């Protein structure tokens, strides 16, 4: 879902750059010191994920991972994705330099949206958490497809045609990303729950308390 150079008109490119710059500014402001390594690792994961082609049938799909990235980073997804896309553009000529702003908005806006939609829900126990995680991975790619359609709407291509084509093409990716996100969230909840968003110290304390209570009961 990278739009190449020379497809979009100048106003769209400018608008994309302005939006990406604003998002990046917000993201950098929210980037606390202890979150820097996490942001860098997720940025690297995003950079590499799109190189991993999963050959299914005659075609091959590649991962995007903007759902889990947004869930864990919130607004910091903007600078992380910007850097990853810049490097993809410079090193592999994927996407383009003039379209960097537009591509960043296409990838990062759904990430931030998923953060607001699902950050409070993934902590819920059991099935709700799984459903929310799946929806997070699925919808992030879906929203990105819609944004590609929106960006291309201003060229000769019609919105519904393009958006439909992109959504259909990325359905397998949406399913795979949903499953990957379930796996990631489940793993983090077991191993390092404080990496997940809105995991407050209070919650942590509550979890610890319930555990000690259980231990006391057993004793």
């Amino acid at each position, binding site marked *: *879902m*990278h*739009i*190449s*150079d*020379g*497809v*979009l008109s100048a106003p769209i490119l400018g608008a994309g750059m302005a939006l990406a710059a604003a998002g990046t500014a917000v993201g950098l402001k929210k*980037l606390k*010191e202890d979150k*820097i*390594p996490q*942001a*860098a690792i997720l*940025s*690297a994961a995003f*950079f*590499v994920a*799109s*190189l991993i*082609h999963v050959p*299914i*049938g*005659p*075609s*091959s*799909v*590649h991962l995007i991972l903007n759902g889990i990235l947004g869930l864990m980073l919130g607004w910091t997804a903007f600078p992380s994705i910007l*850097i*990853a896309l810049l*490097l*993809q553009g410079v*090193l*592999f*000529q*994927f996407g383009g330099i003039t*379209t960097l702003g537009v591509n960043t908005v296409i990838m990062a806006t759904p990430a931030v949206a998923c953060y607001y939609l699902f950050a409070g829900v993934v902590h819920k126990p059991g099935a709700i958490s799984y459903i929310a995680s799946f929806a997070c991975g699925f919808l992030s790619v879906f929203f990105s497809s819609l944004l*590609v359609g929106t*960006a*291309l709407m201003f060229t000769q*291509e019609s919105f519904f045609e*393009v958006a439909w*084509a*992109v959504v*259909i*093409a*990325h*359905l*397998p*990716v949406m*399913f795979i990303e949903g499953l990957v996100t379930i796996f990631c969230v489940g793993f983090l909840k077991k191993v390092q729950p404080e990496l997940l968003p809105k995991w407050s110290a209070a919650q942590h304390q509550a979890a610890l308390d319930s555990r000690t209570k259980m231990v006391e009961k057993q004793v």
Partner: protein
Amino acid sequence: MIYRKYFIMFSYLMLFFILSSGNALAHKVTVFAWVEGGTVLGEGKFSGGKKAQNAEIIVWSLNGKELLRTRTNKKGEFSFPIPARTAMRIELTAGMGHKAEWTIPLEDIDETAAAKSAQDTGPPPHEPAPPGQAAQPAISIDPVQLEAIVEKAVTKALNKKITPLTKIVAGLEQKGPTMNEILGGIGYIFGLMGVAMYFSFRKKKP
């Protein structure tokens, strides 16, 4: 049992979507073209070597005049006769924001055009031999004719030899990212992390 049924339905659905997905998932599209005889041949590929099927090709002259439109075939190839004696910019649009360009310089077209005109003149009209040379055997060939024949043969032979090479070059252009580049990118990201941490640390220190 019910789960099994759903699973099979789901698999078919996935298969359908994957089969219908076509070229949309590729990263980058490239187009490559060369002149052979009086025609322009070319091919469009996505990174990873997938063919750009049924993509629109628009040929522009360098001053922005549209010369012709065509589409790539199932193999991602296209061809058209040289439309005009001018340098050409071939633009491939694969949809969903994928686009690539290739320019054919004027020299390439001139060269083949010259070769072609030499061919077209064909065997020049048989001139009556000068009286002094009448005694010579009939095998003697007119130099102009000879040149045309040789040129034709050489062009043919060269094309045969060069076409595989041009395809190899085109293939190299469409190579996916290498390990070095990938590791380099990750290195850059961690370098930036270092810079960010350095500055945040300095800010904290009074």
